[in-house]
Each structure stands twice: as structure tokens, then as C-alpha cells.
């Protein structure tokens, strides 16, 4: 208890950083669920592929050591981020085209989609494990850790600020896209009522592909941030992180974009406070106990409503 109180602000900043990454990944689960009522279990691999793309880009471009200028670092990070988003986006579309669309054409029962999702997840992860490496792979961290401000006696690092800020920018962008643009309205229309959406001239398949792509882009951004925070990736890096992000999505209310944000942050904070209380080996247990407890009292998650019904 004393540890928790003494380190409260440090734990908070770590929790928020972690939570921001969870939230970005959670968006992918929530978007697809909102439109298809389907848990895309392969989304964890969408994230994983993004982290590999970030690694490859940084390995290729940032190999020479030494202190690069701030502008160069930012440029490299943006490039790696774009690469990760492309990798994740393509993977998400690939999963939709190969694993789900053919099943939709045949009106397959819901359970079949679930199995297809798990299959796609394992196949992609193992393909990377077999053809690339099963080892933990280091990723160059471009940002030299530096304390940028001290808040209530706790130190906030530059990377934490970058992660939280970048996540917020991406989430606000997505939120505005869904709320304000014509295509975003199309996504919400399909989420609320597929038949009526078709009567408006909305091409359902195109909207579904778009939601997978958007989820992929968010996961790609998260992947870059993750590699910069931890300096590594692995073929199965998506597994636990995917489950956590999925937990965050359910926690906030699956299908609800702002719920994903809230769920991610709550989960990140709870993990850090919880492991300070009962020991860090209990971190993952804390996450899932929290999920169970919240769902006991609020079965639809904290914010509840779906992408369709939410005004978000």
C-alpha cells in the first residue's frame, strides 16, 4: 500500500502510457465488432505485422549510430509509423478478404467466423515465426530517454509524452472521420442497420473493408509506439497484447469508439496500481479480474452502447 501511495504518479503515468497503446489496438476490435458483431481475433497479428514493419524500416534507415538531430528522429519515426500502418492495414484487409468475406458470401453461421478468426491469427503468427524468426528481435529506439517534466515529484519521460500525444491525435482523427465524413457516416449506417444502409446506396462490402483498414491503421500506429517504448518485438507479441486490448474494448463497451479509449486507459492504470498493490507478477491477473468484476455490474461495459447507437 505504501508503495502504491509513494509511487502513485509514476504508476499513473506508466499506466496511461500503457493504456494509450491498449486503446489504439482496442479500436480495431471495436470497429469491426460494431459493424459485423464479430471479434476479429486476428487483430493481434495485425498489430504484430505492424511492429515488424516498424522494425524493418528502422533497421534499414537508423543503422548508423550517433546522435541524430531531433528533426531527423521525427522524420524517421514518421516513416516507420507509416510503414507500420501500411503493414498493419494490408494485413487487416488480407484477413477480411481471405478469412471473412468468403464466409459472408456463404452466409456462414457465427461460430464459423470465430474459428476462421482464430485460424487466421495462428496462421499469420506462425508464418512470421517460421519464415522470419522465433526469437525476440531488438528494435532500434530512436528517442533517448529524458525526463521532460516532474509532476508531483514523479518523473515523466519524453517517450511517455510522445506515446500519449500520438495516441490522442490518432484517436481524435478517427473519431472525427467517423462522425463527420460521408464515409464515416456510411460506417455508422452499416453498424446500425445493414439493410437500411443498402437502401441509402451504401456498399456494405466496401464499408466493411474500410473498417478493417481503419482498425489496421490504428494498430500500426500502436505498433510503432510499442517498439519505441520497449525496443523489441516477436512473432507472438500480439498474443497477450491483443487479449489485453480486447479486454479494454469490452471494458469500455465493445462497439463504442470512446469506450475503447476509456477501457484502454482504465486497464492500463488498473494494471499498474494493481501490481503495485499485490506484486507485479499479478499484473495480468489484475487485468482480467477487473474485466470480470466490471462485466458483473455492467455487462455492456463502462460506456455500453454500440458504434451504431453511440453518437460518437
Amino acid at each position, binding site marked *: 500500500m505504501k508503495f502504491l501511495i509513494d509511487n502513485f504518479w509514476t504508476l499513473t503515468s506508466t499506466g496511461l502510457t500503457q493504456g494509450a497503446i491498449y486503446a489504439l489496438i482496442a479500436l480495431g476490435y471495436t470497429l469491426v465488432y460494431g459493424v459485423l458483431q464479430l471479434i476479429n481475433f486476428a487483430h493481434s497479428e495485425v498489430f504484430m505485422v505492424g511492429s515488424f514493419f516498424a522494425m524493418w524500416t528502422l533497421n534499414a534507415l537508423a543503422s548508423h549510430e550517433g546522435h541524430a538531430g531531433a528533426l531527423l528522429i521525427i522524420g524517421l519515426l514518421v516513416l516507420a509509423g507509416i510503414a507500420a500502418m501500411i503493414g498493419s492495414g494490408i494485413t487487416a484487409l488480407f484477413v477480411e478478404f481471405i478469412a471473412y468475406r468468403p464466409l459472408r458470401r456463404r452466409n456462414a453461421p457465427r461460430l464459423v467466423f470465430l474459428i476462421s478468426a482464430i485460424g487466421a491469427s495462428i496462421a499469420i503468427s506462425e508464418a512470421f515465426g517460421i519464415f522470419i524468426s522465433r526469437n525476440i528481435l531488438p528494435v532500434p529506439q530512436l528517442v533517448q530517454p529524458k525526463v521532460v517534466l516532474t509532476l508531483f515529484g514523479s518523473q515523466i519521460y519524453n517517450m511517455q509524452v510522445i506515446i500519449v500525444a500520438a495516441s490522442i491525435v490518432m484517436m481524435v482523427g478517427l473519431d472525427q472521420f467517423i462522425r463527420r465524413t*460521408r464515409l464515416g*457516416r*456510411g460506417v*455508422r*449506417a452499416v453498424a*446500425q*442497420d445493414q*439493410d*437500411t*444502409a*443498402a*437502401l*441509402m*446506396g*451504401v*456498399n*456494405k462490402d466496401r464499408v466493411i473493408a474500410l473498417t478493417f483498414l481503419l482498425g489496421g491503421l490504428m494498430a500500426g500506429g500502436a505498433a510503432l509506439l510499442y517498439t519505441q517504448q520497449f525496443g523489441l518485438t516477436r512473432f507472438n507479441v500480439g498474443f497477450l497484447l491483443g487479449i489485453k486490448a480486447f479486454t479494454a474494448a469490452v471494458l469500455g463497451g465493445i462497439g463504442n469508439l470512446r469506450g475503447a479509449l476509456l477501457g484502454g486507459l482504465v486497464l492500463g492504470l488498473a494494471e499498474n496500481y494493481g501490481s503495485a498493490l499485490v506484486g507485479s507478477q499479478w499484473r495480468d491477473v489484475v487485468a482480467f479480474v477487473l474485466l470480470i468484476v466490471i462485466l458483473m455490474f455492467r455487462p455492456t461495459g463502462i460506456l455500453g*452502447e454500440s458504434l*451504431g*447507437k*453511440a*453518437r460518437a
Partner: protein
Amino acid sequence: MLLEITDLQVFYGRIQALHGVSLYVAQGEIVALIGANGAGKTTTMRAVSGLRPAAHGRIRFDGEDITKLRADLRVRRGISQAPEGRGIFPGMTVLENLDMGTYARRPGREQRQQDLERVFGLFPRLKERRMQVAGTMSGGEQQMLTIGRALMARPKLLLLDEPSMGLAPMLISQIFSIIKEINGQGVTVLVVEQNAQQSLSIADRAYILETGLIVTQGKGRDLLADPAVKAAYLGVA
């Protein structure tokens, strides 16, 4: 002929809902399709708008065969349906719902404003409520919204599925005069109704559907006077 349906058969799984329906709608007409519950009126509408596939038969629209065309592409050809019941997007505002009506044709700012004014002219209530979340509106208001939204698509053919359902008697006659007005603006209308009295009196022609088959057809006012129709559909003994 704007719309021509020939020998249309539609199934739900093994249940056959339409057993060979043939009807046509000429440019500029109001055509009513009436019939008891479960006769297949909604099914006919859904087949025309493309939500339900035709197992047999042909649908021609504006000179082209659209039997196999996807629903969202039929909207682009000029068919717009106001669905039965509360077929609105409940989580969107009234304005967003109306904007969904223009999804396929992407009007410019001015065009959109013009179309909105036209809809608000027909349904002043929608203008007052334009920022309200549609799911919280009354049944009658939602009904107006589905019609207004369908008009935003600037259709050649407007399909109305029970526009008077759940409306107060005052509003019912108002809705039918609005349908006349829309038709007067050059929109061809195919309207499905339980309310035979009202729909027959505004319709140029009408069809009566019974368990998936057209049993009677004729001019609206002739059917109104037909003793058999009176007995079956107008509640007159």
C-alpha cells in the same frame, strides 16, 4: 414503363412469399399495392429495392433489367425506398439521417441545401427537430423522416411501405396529401398500404395482393367502388 415486374417469385428459405407477381408502374403514376397482413407487400418492395433476391421472374426499371443488381446500385439508378416501420438510423440525428439519403449521389453544398428545404417544406416538424437523435423521436416523426430521407435521394421511383402505419387519423390524411404533393413534383410512387380507403383514393391504379398473388387490379377509384373490395378491404359490409 418505369417499373415492370414479371412473374416474380420470392422465398424465405423454403417458405414461398410471392408466387408469381406481375405489375407495372408507369412514369408519373401513383400505384397502390394493398393486401392483408402477410400478403407479401413488403416482400414485393424488398425485391424491387434489392434487399430480397428474386428466385424467379424479372424486374425491369427504366428500360433495364435490374433483377440481379445489388441493392446499393439500384439506389444509384433512381429507386429509393422508405422502409416499413421505423427504418431510421436511431443513433444519428435527423439531419444526419437526411444526409444519408444523399449518400449515393453526393450533392454539392447548394444542392443539398435545396433538397433539405424541399423536405423541410413538406415536413416542417423535421426542421424543428433536425438536431434531435432520431431514435428518440415519436413513431410518426420517424415515419416522416424515412419519407423525407428517401426524397433526399431525388429518386425517379419512390417506394413507400405503409407510410400511414401508426399515425394519428389527422396525420394520416396529411401524409396522403403529402404523397400527392411529392407525386406532383414529378416523382413516381409505388405505395404499399393497409389503409385501402386513403391509398385507393390517391392512387391512379392499384393492385390487390393475396398470399403472394395479385388477385385484382384496376383504377384506384374503380376499386374503391368495387363491392368485393369494399367488403374485404374497406370494412364495408
